């Protein structure tokens, strides 16, 4: 039987070169979806195979990797991907946003501002922002080529007509470098402003859909809106129950079956960092924290 033997960061060098070429093209055309020959990875499609391939292609032995899912370093899938690279690439891993050189993420952008020596790799399920308006790839590619985005504005307008608001709470469409409309992956729209003029390189990998796209550092990223209905980031109006943060995105935790709720930072590293420097919330006697990471 053929005993499996794997290369540094799992992928063979030929595949990495193919992915790097796609990444370079994506950086050269911000927001444009570059088709690439996505491989079958040893984790399921839809679980971050695009992000994993991008990370595998850019990772070097000196890199320090952080992986988050829903903002947290210790959700199951984040742990699984972090362990995958610790095993196949032997790179150092961290949970501290500041120390990481490569951050792979699902559904969040860290609260701590990113810097120039970092790459943020997004896992993307459906890269095409127009997909739910037009299911055909042949059509949506033509619409992008002609910058024909009227359909998207009509959709946002219809939301306002029906609900009084733009009824998109996550995966809120953005325009990159005043040219391509882009799906930011299913991040809450709270995170959209962080993508604009960001010093870090932002790479997006969609494995099942076989697309890579990018936002180069310091690129303009604008959330689509109307003059009389400007873009509004949503955040539950409460401080974090653990660290007291007033400006971080919060997870809602159901604490009992009688309507009890608590709200805590979704970014666990940010929350722990604040608690370590003496910030407290209403419930931060912190037995929770020790249990969570014991």
């Amino acid at each position, binding site marked *: 039987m053929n005993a499996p033997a794997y290369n540094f960061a799992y992928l063979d060098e030929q595949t990495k070169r193919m992915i790097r070429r796609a990444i370079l093209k994506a950086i050269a055309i911000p927001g444009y979806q570059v088709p690439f020959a996505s491989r079958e990875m040893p984790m399921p499609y839809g679980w971050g195979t695009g992000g994993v391939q991008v990370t595998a292609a850019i990772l070097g032995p000196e890199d320090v990797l952080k992986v988050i899912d829903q903002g947290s370093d210790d959700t199951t899938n984040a742990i699984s991907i972090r362990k995958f690279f610790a095993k196949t690439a032997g790179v150092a891993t961290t949970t501290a946003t500041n120390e990481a050189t490569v951050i792979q993420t699902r559904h969040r952008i860290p609260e701590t501002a990113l810097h120039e020596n970092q790459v943020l790799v997004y896992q993307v*399920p459906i890269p095409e922002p127009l997909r739910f308006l037009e299911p055909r790839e042949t059509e949506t590619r033509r619409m992008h080529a002609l910058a024909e985005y009227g359909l998207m504005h009509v959709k946002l307008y219809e939301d306002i007509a029906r609900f009084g608001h733009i009824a998109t*709470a996550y995966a809120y469409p953005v325009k990159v470098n005043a040219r391509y409309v882009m799906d930011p992956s299913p991040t809450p729209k709270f995170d959209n402003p962080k993508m604009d003029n960001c010093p870090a390189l932002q790479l997006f990998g969609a494995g099942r859909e076989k697309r890579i796209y990018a936002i180069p550092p310091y690129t303009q990223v604008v959330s689509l809106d109307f003059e009389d209905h400007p873009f509004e980031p949503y955040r539950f109006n409460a401080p974090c129950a653990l660290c007291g943060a007033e400006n971080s995105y919060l997870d809602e935790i159901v604490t009992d079956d009688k309507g009890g709720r608590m709200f805590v930072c979704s970014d666990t590293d940010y929350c722990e960092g604040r608690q370590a420097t003496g910030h407290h919330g209403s419930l931060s006697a912190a037995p929770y924290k020790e249990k969570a990471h014991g």
Partner: protein
Amino acid sequence: MYVAVKGGERAIENAHRLLAHKRRGDQSVPEVTLAQISEQLGLAVDRVMSEGSLYDRELAALAIKQARGDLIEAIFLVRAFRATMPRFGSSEPVDTGTMRVRRRVSATFKDIPGGQILGPTFDYTHRLLDPLLAEGLAPEAPATADAHTAPTPRVTDILGRDGLIECSPPADDGASVGDLTREPLNFPADRDLRLQNLARGDEGFLLAMGYSTQRGYGRNHPFVGEIRFGEVEVELFAEDAGFAVPLGSIELTECQMVNQFKGSATEAPCFTRGYGLAFGQSERKTMSMALVDRALRARELGEEVRAPAQDEEFVMSHSDNVQATGFVEHLKLPHYVDFQSELGLLRKLRQEFADASTPDAMKEAAE
């Protein structure tokens, strides 16, 4: 309570240990061997090799064992292994006309050169559960005869000699065959890529799509020209040696569907082809594949594209069970960040609805 939503390395490790335990089942029952799977669950192995696109019975049997008999999971294991394998080159096209035939039936002619050979088939068995098999049963030795030496030409070639069926396009020696595992797929896709996609496609999906064409969603009047199953040689052209060297033989099932005619003012009418090919004995798969292949040729044959089975974006984007199961099952991953965002929006909309329905607001509206 905060703990409940967080994973944890130890939780994952424990889950995997439990899985390994459940996989083994009751340890007083003997463990199943790869040879047992390969020999006694041979059609499962065939399916995993076909949809996993890797001809290796032992690895496929291992995947089935590791996946606890979940064939889509086994296909996934094989695919992930295959993705890391280096490519040495492409084999010479296999010649199914020279197949050592174990089974071969045609529905279009009562008798054909080389004869109809039933071979090992479930067809005509009465589907009655067999209690004797539960106890373990040494089967009767199969009937034997002298090896058949006459050639078994393909039925479509016989039709082709009279021009009654369209010619297969001649091989273009210079052109490389497309490979959607190496190059990103673009639409419209050529037939080589469509056939590759169908060959890797989920048997159940193709069965349903093929069935839909029979029920009028893209009807194409199919006849089974021929199904044949047996062994063929695989050869690789060795640049150094300057000739094709044999790599070994593999088992294949091929289905040639004969479908309704095409023709025009300038072209005599003739039957059209639908093609199916799979590793091992996979008749349901190859027949479904041939129906869908023919349906997907609608554009090329100037037919109106109206049914799902004729729509190559629809079929090719949804045929792969490894892709489909990943994306469907990813819904069990945490989504609480997006869900929280939706909750916030919904609460706001409900609040506005409630405010608008209060008597005060109604009065104001009336004024």
